[in-house]
Protein backbone atom coordinates (compact mmCIF):
# COMPACT_ATOMS: atom_id res chain seq x y z
CA UNK A 1 0.00 0.00 0.00
CA UNK A 2 1.19 3.50 -0.69
CA UNK A 3 0.71 7.22 -0.64
CA UNK A 4 0.69 8.37 -4.26
CA UNK A 5 1.30 11.99 -5.17
CA UNK A 6 0.73 13.68 -8.52
CA UNK A 7 3.81 15.84 -9.16
CA UNK A 8 2.23 18.43 -11.44
CA UNK A 9 4.53 20.33 -13.79
CA UNK A 10 4.27 22.79 -16.60
CA UNK A 11 6.71 22.58 -19.51
CA UNK A 12 8.89 20.22 -17.53
CA UNK A 13 9.32 22.40 -14.47
CA UNK A 14 7.73 21.68 -11.13
CA UNK A 15 6.00 24.44 -9.22
CA UNK A 16 6.43 25.34 -5.58
CA UNK A 17 3.08 23.69 -4.80
CA UNK A 18 4.43 20.41 -6.15
CA UNK A 19 7.31 20.44 -3.64
CA UNK A 20 4.81 21.20 -0.89
CA UNK A 21 2.71 18.16 -1.77
CA UNK A 22 5.80 15.97 -2.14
CA UNK A 23 6.90 16.95 1.38
CA UNK A 24 3.36 16.45 2.63
CA UNK A 25 3.04 13.04 0.93
CA UNK A 26 6.39 11.88 2.30
CA UNK A 27 5.46 12.89 5.85
CA UNK A 28 2.00 11.33 5.51
CA UNK A 29 3.58 8.09 4.27
CA UNK A 30 6.02 8.12 7.19
CA UNK A 31 3.22 8.62 9.70
CA UNK A 32 1.02 5.90 8.17
CA UNK A 33 3.97 3.58 7.51
CA UNK A 34 3.40 3.44 3.76
CA UNK A 35 5.55 3.81 0.66
CA UNK A 36 5.54 7.16 -1.11
CA UNK A 37 5.22 7.13 -4.90
CA UNK A 38 5.21 10.20 -7.17
CA UNK A 39 3.60 10.24 -10.61
CA UNK A 40 4.80 12.57 -13.35
CA UNK A 41 3.11 12.98 -16.71
CA UNK A 42 5.25 13.29 -19.80
CA UNK A 43 8.40 14.50 -18.06
CA UNK A 44 11.98 13.74 -19.01
CA UNK A 45 14.38 11.79 -16.86
CA UNK A 46 16.34 15.01 -16.18
CA UNK A 47 13.20 16.78 -15.01
CA UNK A 48 12.34 14.17 -12.43
CA UNK A 49 15.78 13.40 -10.96
CA UNK A 50 15.47 15.93 -8.16
CA UNK A 51 12.06 14.67 -6.96
CA UNK A 52 13.99 12.15 -4.84
CA UNK A 53 15.19 15.12 -2.75
CA UNK A 54 11.75 15.22 -1.17
CA UNK A 55 11.74 11.73 0.27
CA UNK A 56 9.77 9.80 -2.35
CA UNK A 57 10.56 6.08 -2.70
CA UNK A 58 9.59 5.80 -6.33
CA UNK A 59 8.82 8.01 -9.30
CA UNK A 60 6.59 6.67 -12.08
CA UNK A 61 6.79 8.77 -15.24
CA UNK A 62 3.87 8.26 -17.58
CA UNK A 63 5.16 8.38 -21.11
CA UNK A 64 2.39 10.46 -22.69
CA UNK A 65 1.45 14.06 -23.25
CA UNK A 66 -1.77 15.58 -21.94
CA UNK A 67 -3.32 18.99 -22.55
CA UNK A 68 -4.01 20.67 -19.21
CA UNK A 69 -7.72 20.92 -20.07
CA UNK A 70 -7.94 17.14 -20.61
CA UNK A 71 -9.10 16.40 -17.08
CA UNK A 72 -10.76 13.17 -18.17
CA UNK A 73 -7.54 11.82 -19.70
CA UNK A 74 -5.32 12.94 -16.82
CA UNK A 75 -7.64 11.41 -14.21
CA UNK A 76 -7.70 8.19 -16.22
CA UNK A 77 -3.89 8.00 -16.39
CA UNK A 78 -3.44 8.80 -12.69
CA UNK A 79 -6.03 6.23 -11.64
CA UNK A 80 -4.28 3.47 -13.60
CA UNK A 81 -0.99 4.17 -11.82
CA UNK A 82 -2.73 4.61 -8.44
CA UNK A 83 -4.23 1.15 -8.85
CA UNK A 84 -0.90 -0.39 -9.91
CA UNK A 85 0.72 1.14 -6.84
CA UNK A 86 -2.13 0.12 -4.53
CA UNK A 87 -2.70 3.70 -3.36
CA UNK A 88 -4.69 4.23 -0.20
CA UNK A 89 -3.94 7.95 -0.03
CA UNK A 90 -3.63 10.08 -3.16
CA UNK A 91 -2.26 13.62 -2.83
CA UNK A 92 -2.86 16.53 -5.20
CA UNK A 93 -2.29 20.24 -4.99
CA UNK A 94 -5.41 22.33 -4.35
CA UNK A 95 -4.63 24.12 -7.61
CA UNK A 96 -7.12 24.55 -10.44
CA UNK A 97 -5.77 21.34 -11.94
CA UNK A 98 -5.81 19.43 -8.66
CA UNK A 99 -9.37 20.46 -7.92
CA UNK A 100 -10.44 19.44 -11.41
CA UNK A 101 -8.74 16.04 -11.36
CA UNK A 102 -9.26 15.05 -7.71
CA UNK A 103 -13.04 14.60 -7.76
CA UNK A 104 -12.89 12.59 -11.00
CA UNK A 105 -10.18 10.40 -9.50
CA UNK A 106 -12.24 9.84 -6.36
CA UNK A 107 -15.14 8.48 -8.42
CA UNK A 108 -12.79 6.21 -10.39
CA UNK A 109 -11.04 4.84 -7.31
CA UNK A 110 -14.16 4.72 -5.12
CA UNK A 111 -12.33 7.02 -2.70
CA UNK A 112 -13.41 10.01 -0.63
CA UNK A 113 -12.24 13.46 -1.73
CA UNK A 114 -11.12 16.06 0.81
CA UNK A 115 -9.95 19.47 -0.46
CA UNK A 116 -8.38 22.56 1.21
CA UNK A 117 -6.33 20.34 3.50
CA UNK A 118 -3.81 22.15 5.73
CA UNK A 119 -2.02 19.39 7.68
CA UNK A 120 -1.02 15.72 7.47
CA UNK A 121 -3.66 13.23 8.71
CA UNK A 122 -4.26 13.18 12.41
CA UNK A 123 -4.84 9.43 12.37
CA UNK A 124 -5.04 6.63 9.84
CA UNK A 125 -8.02 4.59 10.86
CA UNK A 126 -10.43 6.21 10.64
CA UNK A 127 -8.64 8.70 8.44
CA UNK A 128 -9.08 12.18 9.97
CA UNK A 129 -7.55 15.33 8.49
CA UNK A 130 -7.72 19.09 9.06
CA UNK A 131 -9.03 21.38 6.31
CA UNK A 132 -10.16 24.95 5.82
CA UNK A 133 -13.89 25.54 5.82
CA UNK A 134 -16.38 28.39 5.42
CA UNK A 135 -14.02 30.21 3.06
CA UNK A 136 -11.29 30.62 5.64
CA UNK A 137 -13.63 31.59 8.49
CA UNK A 138 -13.12 28.18 10.18
CA UNK A 139 -11.25 24.88 10.19
CA UNK A 140 -12.88 21.48 10.01
CA UNK A 141 -11.76 17.98 10.96
CA UNK A 142 -12.97 15.73 8.15
CA UNK A 143 -13.22 11.96 8.37
CA UNK A 144 -13.14 9.57 5.45
CA UNK A 145 -15.66 6.71 5.42
CA UNK A 146 -13.85 5.02 2.56
CA UNK A 147 -10.72 2.89 2.59
CA UNK A 148 -9.11 5.18 0.04
CA UNK A 149 -8.88 8.93 0.22
CA UNK A 150 -7.86 11.68 -2.21
CA UNK A 151 -6.59 14.85 -0.54
CA UNK A 152 -5.92 18.25 -2.11
CA UNK A 153 -3.44 20.32 -0.11
CA UNK A 154 -3.91 24.11 0.16
CA UNK A 155 -1.02 26.13 -1.31
CA UNK A 156 1.36 27.71 1.24
CA UNK A 157 -0.11 25.61 4.05
CA UNK A 158 2.73 23.12 4.36
CA UNK A 159 6.42 23.91 4.60
CA UNK A 160 8.76 22.36 2.04
CA UNK A 161 11.46 20.18 3.62
CA UNK A 162 14.17 18.46 1.65
CA UNK A 163 14.80 14.84 2.46
CA UNK A 164 17.10 13.09 0.01
CA UNK A 165 16.33 9.46 -0.76
CA UNK A 166 19.27 7.85 -2.55
CA UNK A 167 17.32 4.59 -2.98
CA UNK A 168 14.59 6.27 -5.01
CA UNK A 169 13.51 4.11 -7.93
CA UNK A 170 12.66 5.67 -11.31
CA UNK A 171 10.34 3.86 -13.70
CA UNK A 172 8.47 4.71 -16.88
CA UNK A 173 4.97 3.54 -17.53
CA UNK A 174 2.88 3.29 -20.67
CA UNK A 175 -0.84 3.76 -20.22
CA UNK A 176 -3.85 3.34 -22.40
CA UNK A 177 -4.89 6.81 -23.52
CA UNK A 178 -8.55 7.63 -23.91
CA UNK A 179 -10.05 10.16 -26.29
CA UNK A 180 -10.24 13.76 -25.15
CA UNK A 181 -13.66 15.42 -24.74
CA UNK A 182 -12.42 19.00 -24.13
CA UNK A 183 -9.89 20.49 -26.54
CA UNK A 184 -7.65 23.49 -26.09
CA UNK A 185 -7.88 26.43 -28.47
CA UNK A 186 -4.98 28.33 -26.96
CA UNK A 187 -3.60 29.83 -23.80
CA UNK A 188 -3.19 33.49 -22.94
CA UNK A 189 -0.57 34.11 -20.28
CA UNK A 190 -0.92 37.07 -17.95
CA UNK A 191 2.33 38.97 -18.44
CA UNK A 192 5.05 38.48 -15.89
CA UNK A 193 2.52 37.93 -13.15
CA UNK A 194 3.32 35.85 -10.12
CA UNK A 195 0.64 33.27 -9.37
CA UNK A 196 -1.34 34.71 -6.45
CA UNK A 197 -1.92 31.31 -4.87
CA UNK A 198 1.80 30.62 -4.68
CA UNK A 199 3.21 34.11 -4.02
CA UNK A 200 5.16 34.45 -0.75
CA UNK A 201 4.23 38.11 -0.51
CA UNK A 202 1.11 39.84 -1.78
CA UNK A 203 0.53 43.59 -2.06
CA UNK A 204 -3.15 44.39 -2.28
CA UNK A 205 -5.11 47.60 -2.64
CA UNK A 206 -8.69 48.76 -2.40
CA UNK A 207 -10.95 51.65 -3.20
CA UNK A 208 -8.77 53.90 -1.05
CA UNK A 209 -6.49 54.18 -4.09
CA UNK A 210 -9.16 56.32 -5.78
CA UNK A 211 -8.55 55.12 -9.34
CA UNK A 212 -6.78 52.53 -11.51
CA UNK A 213 -4.18 55.13 -12.57
CA UNK A 214 -2.79 55.04 -9.03
CA UNK A 215 -1.75 51.39 -9.13
CA UNK A 216 1.74 52.20 -10.31
CA UNK A 217 3.03 52.58 -6.75
CA UNK A 218 1.34 49.29 -5.79
CA UNK A 219 3.12 47.53 -8.64
CA UNK A 220 6.41 49.19 -7.75
CA UNK A 221 6.10 48.04 -4.14
CA UNK A 222 5.16 44.54 -5.33
CA UNK A 223 8.15 44.40 -7.68
CA UNK A 224 10.50 45.42 -4.88
CA UNK A 225 9.18 42.66 -2.64
CA UNK A 226 8.90 40.10 -5.45
CA UNK A 227 5.22 40.02 -4.60
CA UNK A 228 1.97 39.30 -6.39
CA UNK A 229 -0.62 42.06 -6.70
CA UNK A 230 -4.20 41.64 -5.51
CA UNK A 231 -7.25 43.80 -4.91
CA UNK A 232 -10.53 44.00 -3.03
CA UNK A 233 -13.89 43.01 -4.53
CA UNK A 234 -15.20 46.54 -5.22
CA UNK A 235 -12.04 47.33 -7.15
CA UNK A 236 -12.48 44.32 -9.46
CA UNK A 237 -16.23 44.94 -9.76
CA UNK A 238 -15.74 48.48 -11.05
CA UNK A 239 -13.06 47.21 -13.41
CA UNK A 240 -10.00 48.97 -12.01
CA UNK A 241 -8.24 45.61 -11.82
CA UNK A 242 -8.88 42.17 -13.41
CA UNK A 243 -11.14 39.67 -11.62
CA UNK A 244 -8.20 37.29 -11.32
CA UNK A 245 -6.72 39.69 -8.71
CA UNK A 246 -9.79 39.73 -6.45
CA UNK A 247 -8.97 38.10 -3.11
CA UNK A 248 -11.65 37.42 -0.52
CA UNK A 249 -14.51 35.09 0.19
CA UNK A 250 -15.91 35.12 -3.34
CA UNK A 251 -12.54 35.61 -5.02
CA UNK A 252 -9.28 33.83 -4.36
CA UNK A 253 -8.26 32.56 -0.95
CA UNK A 254 -4.57 33.14 -0.39
CA UNK A 255 -2.04 32.33 2.34
CA UNK A 256 1.18 34.26 1.72
CA UNK A 257 3.85 34.89 4.36
CA UNK A 258 3.24 38.62 4.10
CA UNK A 259 0.05 40.39 3.03
CA UNK A 260 0.08 44.18 2.72
CA UNK A 261 -3.39 45.73 2.46
CA UNK A 262 -3.47 49.33 1.26
CA UNK A 263 -6.68 51.34 1.36
CA UNK A 264 -8.76 48.22 2.15
CA UNK A 265 -11.12 48.61 5.11
CA UNK A 266 -11.17 44.89 5.93
CA UNK A 267 -14.78 43.75 5.53
CA UNK A 268 -15.43 40.25 6.87
CA UNK A 269 -15.70 38.89 3.31
CA UNK A 270 -12.26 40.25 2.43
CA UNK A 271 -10.62 39.00 5.64
CA UNK A 272 -12.01 35.50 5.07
CA UNK A 273 -9.90 35.18 1.94
CA UNK A 274 -6.66 36.50 3.41
CA UNK A 275 -6.62 35.63 7.12
CA UNK A 276 -4.49 32.54 6.50
CA UNK A 277 -1.61 34.92 5.71
CA UNK A 278 1.17 34.58 8.28
CA UNK A 279 1.73 38.32 8.72
CA UNK A 280 -0.66 41.09 7.69
CA UNK A 281 0.06 44.81 7.37
CA UNK A 282 -2.76 47.35 7.01
CA UNK A 283 -2.36 50.89 5.73
CA UNK A 284 -5.53 52.95 5.93
CA UNK A 285 -6.61 56.54 6.60
CA UNK A 286 -9.41 55.42 8.90
CA UNK A 287 -8.15 54.41 12.39
CA UNK A 288 -11.45 52.56 12.91
CA UNK A 289 -11.01 50.36 9.80
CA UNK A 290 -11.77 46.73 10.78
CA UNK A 291 -8.52 45.63 9.15
CA UNK A 292 -6.59 47.01 12.14
CA UNK A 293 -8.28 44.37 14.33
CA UNK A 294 -7.00 41.58 12.07
CA UNK A 295 -3.59 42.92 11.06
CA UNK A 296 -0.26 42.37 12.82
CA UNK A 297 1.12 45.79 11.91
CA UNK A 298 -0.76 48.93 11.00
CA UNK A 299 -0.16 52.47 9.84
CA UNK A 300 -2.95 55.04 9.97
CA UNK A 301 -2.21 57.39 7.13
CA UNK A 302 -2.78 58.43 3.57
CA UNK A 303 -1.64 55.72 1.15
CA UNK A 304 -0.37 58.38 -1.25
CA UNK A 305 2.13 59.52 1.40
CA UNK A 306 2.82 56.26 3.25
CA UNK A 307 3.40 53.98 0.26
CA UNK A 308 6.07 56.13 -1.49
CA UNK A 309 7.92 56.46 1.85
CA UNK A 310 7.63 52.72 2.38
CA UNK A 311 9.04 52.11 -1.11
CA UNK A 312 12.02 54.35 -0.30
CA UNK A 313 12.64 52.56 3.00
CA UNK A 314 12.50 49.14 1.38
CA UNK A 315 14.94 50.26 -1.32
CA UNK A 316 17.27 51.51 1.43
CA UNK A 317 16.85 48.25 3.34
CA UNK A 318 17.59 46.18 0.25
CA UNK A 319 20.70 48.10 -0.67
CA UNK A 320 22.12 47.69 2.84
CA UNK A 321 21.31 43.97 3.14
Amino acid at each position, binding site marked *: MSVVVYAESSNGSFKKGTFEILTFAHETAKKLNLRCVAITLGNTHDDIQHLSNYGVDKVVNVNAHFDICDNKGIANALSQIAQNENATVFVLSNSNTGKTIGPRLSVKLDASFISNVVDIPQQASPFVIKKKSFSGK*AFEMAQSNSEKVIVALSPNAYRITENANSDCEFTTSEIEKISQNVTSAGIEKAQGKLSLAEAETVVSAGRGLKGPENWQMIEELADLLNAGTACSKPVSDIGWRPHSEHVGQ*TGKAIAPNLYIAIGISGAIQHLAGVNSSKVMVAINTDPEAPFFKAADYGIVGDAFEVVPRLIDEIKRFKSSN
Partner: protein
Amino acid sequence: MNILVCISHVPDTTSKINFSDDSTSFNTDGIQFIINPYDEFGLTKAIKLKNKHGGKVTVIHYGPVSSEPTLRKALAIGADEAIRIDGQPEDSFSVAKALSKVIEEHRFDLIIAGRESIDYNGGAVPAMIAELLDLPFVNACTGLDVSGSEVKMEREIEGGKEFVNAILPVIIAGQKGLVEESDLIIPNMRGIMTARTKPLSVVDDGNHLSKCHSVSFEKPPVKQACKMIDAGQEKELVTLLHQEAKVI
Protein backbone atom coordinates in the same frame (compact mmCIF):
# COMPACT_ATOMS: atom_id res chain seq x y z
CA MET B 1 -31.48 24.69 -25.06
CA ASN B 2 -32.25 22.80 -21.90
CA ILE B 3 -30.08 24.26 -19.13
CA LEU B 4 -29.69 23.10 -15.54
CA VAL B 5 -28.22 25.38 -12.89
CA CYS B 6 -27.08 23.78 -9.63
CA ILE B 7 -27.80 26.00 -6.65
CA SER B 8 -26.18 25.86 -3.23
CA HIS B 9 -27.95 27.48 -0.29
CA VAL B 10 -25.22 29.17 1.76
CA PRO B 11 -24.77 31.69 4.59
CA ASP B 12 -24.70 35.30 3.44
CA THR B 13 -21.10 36.47 2.84
CA THR B 14 -21.33 38.92 5.77
CA SER B 15 -22.18 36.08 8.23
CA LYS B 16 -20.09 35.47 11.29
CA ILE B 17 -19.65 31.71 11.48
CA ASN B 18 -20.42 29.95 14.78
CA PHE B 19 -20.69 26.31 15.74
CA SER B 20 -22.79 24.24 18.14
CA ASP B 21 -21.56 24.07 21.76
CA ASP B 22 -19.90 20.72 21.11
CA SER B 23 -18.30 22.14 17.90
CA THR B 24 -19.72 19.35 15.76
CA SER B 25 -22.06 21.36 13.57
CA PHE B 26 -22.62 24.77 12.02
CA ASN B 27 -24.94 26.93 14.11
CA THR B 28 -27.47 28.48 11.73
CA ASP B 29 -29.13 30.72 14.36
CA GLY B 30 -29.56 34.21 13.00
CA ILE B 31 -27.97 33.29 9.66
CA GLN B 32 -29.39 34.72 6.47
CA PHE B 33 -29.10 32.27 3.58
CA ILE B 34 -28.47 33.25 -0.02
CA ILE B 35 -27.87 31.67 -3.42
CA ASN B 36 -24.19 30.74 -3.51
CA PRO B 37 -22.51 33.73 -5.27
CA TYR B 38 -20.73 31.53 -7.86
CA ASP B 39 -24.07 29.87 -8.70
CA GLU B 40 -25.74 33.25 -9.13
CA PHE B 41 -23.26 34.14 -11.88
CA GLY B 42 -24.16 30.80 -13.51
CA LEU B 43 -27.90 31.39 -13.18
CA THR B 44 -27.60 34.82 -14.77
CA LYS B 45 -25.55 33.32 -17.61
CA ALA B 46 -28.20 30.61 -18.11
CA ILE B 47 -30.96 33.21 -18.39
CA LYS B 48 -28.90 35.19 -20.93
CA LEU B 49 -28.34 32.02 -22.99
CA LYS B 50 -32.05 31.23 -22.89
CA ASN B 51 -32.92 34.75 -24.04
CA LYS B 52 -30.54 34.33 -26.98
CA HIS B 53 -31.17 30.72 -28.01
CA GLY B 54 -34.55 29.88 -26.48
CA GLY B 55 -35.13 26.86 -24.27
CA LYS B 56 -35.61 26.40 -20.58
CA VAL B 57 -33.69 27.07 -17.38
CA THR B 58 -34.18 24.63 -14.50
CA VAL B 59 -32.60 25.16 -11.11
CA ILE B 60 -31.81 22.29 -8.76
CA HIS B 61 -30.89 22.17 -5.10
CA TYR B 62 -30.29 19.33 -2.67
CA GLY B 63 -31.55 20.23 0.80
CA PRO B 64 -34.43 20.22 3.26
CA VAL B 65 -37.70 22.12 2.80
CA SER B 66 -36.23 25.09 4.71
CA SER B 67 -34.04 25.87 1.69
CA GLU B 68 -37.02 26.38 -0.67
CA PRO B 69 -36.98 30.20 -0.36
CA THR B 70 -33.57 30.12 -2.06
CA LEU B 71 -35.05 28.16 -4.98
CA ARG B 72 -38.02 30.55 -5.14
CA LYS B 73 -35.54 33.41 -5.34
CA ALA B 74 -33.85 31.69 -8.31
CA LEU B 75 -37.30 31.42 -9.95
CA ALA B 76 -37.94 35.10 -9.25
CA ILE B 77 -34.62 35.96 -10.92
CA GLY B 78 -35.83 34.17 -14.05
CA ALA B 79 -35.47 30.37 -13.90
CA ASP B 80 -38.48 28.52 -15.36
CA GLU B 81 -38.73 25.65 -12.94
CA ALA B 82 -37.08 24.22 -9.87
CA ILE B 83 -36.28 20.79 -8.51
CA ARG B 84 -35.48 20.16 -4.88
CA ILE B 85 -33.83 16.90 -3.95
CA ASP B 86 -35.18 16.31 -0.50
CA GLY B 87 -32.64 15.49 2.19
CA GLN B 88 -29.67 16.69 4.16
CA PRO B 89 -26.55 15.96 2.10
CA GLU B 90 -23.42 14.91 3.96
CA ASP B 91 -20.68 15.14 1.38
CA SER B 92 -19.92 16.05 -2.24
CA PHE B 93 -20.22 12.48 -3.47
CA SER B 94 -23.77 11.93 -2.24
CA VAL B 95 -24.75 15.27 -3.81
CA ALA B 96 -23.09 14.33 -7.11
CA LYS B 97 -24.86 10.94 -7.13
CA ALA B 98 -28.28 12.43 -6.46
CA LEU B 99 -27.83 15.22 -9.04
CA SER B 100 -26.52 12.77 -11.64
CA LYS B 101 -29.71 10.71 -11.37
CA VAL B 102 -31.90 13.76 -12.11
CA ILE B 103 -29.58 14.91 -14.93
CA GLU B 104 -29.79 11.49 -16.61
CA GLU B 105 -33.59 11.55 -16.46
CA HIS B 106 -33.95 15.06 -17.92
CA ARG B 107 -31.25 15.09 -20.61
CA PHE B 108 -29.94 18.61 -20.06
CA ASP B 109 -27.71 20.14 -22.75
CA LEU B 110 -25.74 22.35 -20.42
CA ILE B 111 -25.20 21.97 -16.69
CA ILE B 112 -23.86 25.00 -14.85
CA ALA B 113 -22.56 24.80 -11.29
CA GLY B 114 -20.45 27.22 -9.27
CA ARG B 115 -16.70 26.76 -8.85
CA GLU B 116 -17.32 26.02 -5.19
CA SER B 117 -19.86 26.80 -2.50
CA ILE B 118 -18.78 29.39 0.05
CA ASP B 119 -19.73 27.21 3.04
CA TYR B 120 -17.79 23.94 2.84
CA ASN B 121 -15.75 24.95 -0.26
CA GLY B 122 -15.42 21.36 -1.48
CA GLY B 123 -15.42 22.37 -5.14
CA ALA B 124 -15.95 18.73 -6.05
CA VAL B 125 -19.55 18.16 -7.13
CA PRO B 126 -19.37 19.27 -10.79
CA ALA B 127 -16.24 17.23 -11.58
CA MET B 128 -17.76 14.20 -9.85
CA ILE B 129 -20.91 14.53 -11.97
CA ALA B 130 -18.70 14.79 -15.07
CA GLU B 131 -17.02 11.52 -14.12
CA LEU B 132 -20.25 9.75 -13.18
CA LEU B 133 -21.99 10.73 -16.43
CA ASP B 134 -18.91 10.84 -18.69
CA LEU B 135 -19.40 14.50 -19.59
CA PRO B 136 -16.84 17.08 -20.75
CA PHE B 137 -15.98 19.30 -17.78
CA VAL B 138 -14.54 22.80 -17.61
CA ASN B 139 -13.52 24.19 -14.22
CA ALA B 140 -13.17 27.88 -13.23
CA CYS B 141 -15.11 28.81 -16.36
CA THR B 142 -15.08 32.58 -17.06
CA GLY B 143 -16.76 32.71 -20.45
CA LEU B 144 -19.08 30.58 -22.56
CA ASP B 145 -20.69 30.83 -25.96
CA VAL B 146 -22.86 28.22 -27.66
CA SER B 147 -23.45 27.77 -31.37
CA GLY B 148 -25.38 24.67 -32.39
CA SER B 149 -23.90 21.83 -30.39
CA GLU B 150 -20.49 23.47 -30.08
CA VAL B 151 -19.45 25.32 -26.94
CA LYS B 152 -16.52 27.70 -26.83
CA MET B 153 -15.35 28.46 -23.32
CA GLU B 154 -12.75 30.45 -21.48
CA ARG B 155 -11.35 29.29 -18.17
CA GLU B 156 -8.96 30.65 -15.60
CA ILE B 157 -5.70 28.74 -15.24
CA GLU B 158 -2.76 29.51 -13.00
CA GLY B 159 -1.07 32.56 -14.48
CA GLY B 160 -3.52 33.20 -17.31
CA LYS B 161 -6.49 31.85 -19.18
CA GLU B 162 -7.21 29.07 -21.60
CA PHE B 163 -9.73 28.85 -24.44
CA VAL B 164 -11.35 25.44 -24.75
CA ASN B 165 -13.97 23.77 -26.94
CA ALA B 166 -16.38 20.92 -26.37
CA ILE B 167 -19.58 19.41 -27.75
CA LEU B 168 -22.84 19.50 -25.75
CA PRO B 169 -23.81 18.13 -23.31
CA VAL B 170 -21.21 19.82 -21.12
CA ILE B 171 -20.88 20.57 -17.40
CA ILE B 172 -19.03 23.65 -16.17
CA ALA B 173 -18.04 25.06 -12.80
CA GLY B 174 -18.33 28.81 -13.27
CA GLN B 175 -17.24 32.01 -11.61
CA LYS B 176 -17.31 35.75 -12.17
CA GLY B 177 -16.56 36.49 -15.81
CA LEU B 178 -19.36 34.22 -17.05
CA VAL B 179 -21.29 37.43 -16.41
CA GLU B 180 -20.23 40.57 -14.58
CA GLU B 181 -21.39 41.68 -11.13
CA SER B 182 -23.43 44.43 -12.83
CA ASP B 183 -25.33 41.82 -14.90
CA LEU B 184 -26.79 40.14 -11.81
CA ILE B 185 -30.57 40.39 -11.74
CA ILE B 186 -32.39 41.76 -8.72
CA PRO B 187 -35.87 40.19 -8.75
CA ASN B 188 -38.67 42.69 -9.38
CA MET B 189 -42.20 42.43 -7.97
CA ARG B 190 -43.52 40.70 -11.08
CA GLY B 191 -40.70 38.15 -10.88
CA ILE B 192 -41.44 37.49 -7.23
CA MET B 193 -45.17 37.07 -7.91
CA THR B 194 -44.73 34.69 -10.87
CA ALA B 195 -42.11 32.69 -8.94
CA ARG B 196 -44.86 31.61 -6.55
CA THR B 197 -46.68 29.71 -9.28
CA LYS B 198 -43.72 28.34 -11.21
CA PRO B 199 -43.29 24.56 -10.84
CA LEU B 200 -41.13 23.37 -7.96
CA SER B 201 -40.94 19.60 -7.80
CA VAL B 202 -39.52 17.57 -4.95
CA VAL B 203 -37.69 14.32 -5.60
CA ASP B 204 -36.32 11.64 -3.33
CA ASP B 205 -32.56 11.75 -2.62
CA GLY B 206 -32.07 8.02 -3.20
CA ASN B 207 -30.15 7.65 0.04
CA HIS B 208 -26.65 7.54 -1.39
CA LEU B 209 -23.95 6.74 1.12
CA SER B 210 -21.50 9.52 1.83
CA LYS B 211 -17.76 8.95 1.59
CA CYS B 212 -16.71 11.45 4.20
CA HIS B 213 -18.18 13.64 6.92
CA SER B 214 -17.29 16.49 9.26
CA VAL B 215 -16.18 15.50 12.74
CA SER B 216 -15.68 18.91 14.33
CA PHE B 217 -15.07 22.57 13.61
CA GLU B 218 -12.91 25.27 15.13
CA LYS B 219 -12.40 28.96 14.51
CA PRO B 220 -8.97 30.35 13.62
CA PRO B 221 -6.98 31.48 16.68
CA VAL B 222 -7.61 35.09 17.74
CA LYS B 223 -4.91 37.45 16.52
CA GLN B 224 -2.81 39.44 18.95
CA ALA B 225 -3.37 43.19 19.00
CA CYS B 226 -2.13 45.04 15.94
CA LYS B 227 1.15 46.93 16.44
CA MET B 228 0.55 50.49 15.30
CA ILE B 229 3.34 52.44 13.68
CA ASP B 230 3.08 56.20 13.21
CA ALA B 231 2.82 57.51 9.67
CA GLY B 232 6.26 58.85 8.80
CA GLN B 233 7.96 55.97 10.65
CA GLU B 234 7.87 53.53 7.70
CA LYS B 235 11.47 52.64 8.48
CA GLU B 236 10.30 51.12 11.73
CA LEU B 237 7.78 48.97 9.84
CA VAL B 238 10.53 47.67 7.53
CA THR B 239 12.71 46.87 10.57
CA LEU B 240 9.85 45.03 12.30
CA LEU B 241 9.01 43.03 9.18
CA HIS B 242 12.66 42.06 8.86
CA GLN B 243 13.70 41.44 12.46
CA GLU B 244 10.51 40.52 14.29
CA ALA B 245 8.18 39.00 11.69
CA LYS B 246 11.09 37.77 9.52
CA VAL B 247 9.07 38.06 6.35
CA ILE B 248 11.35 40.35 4.32
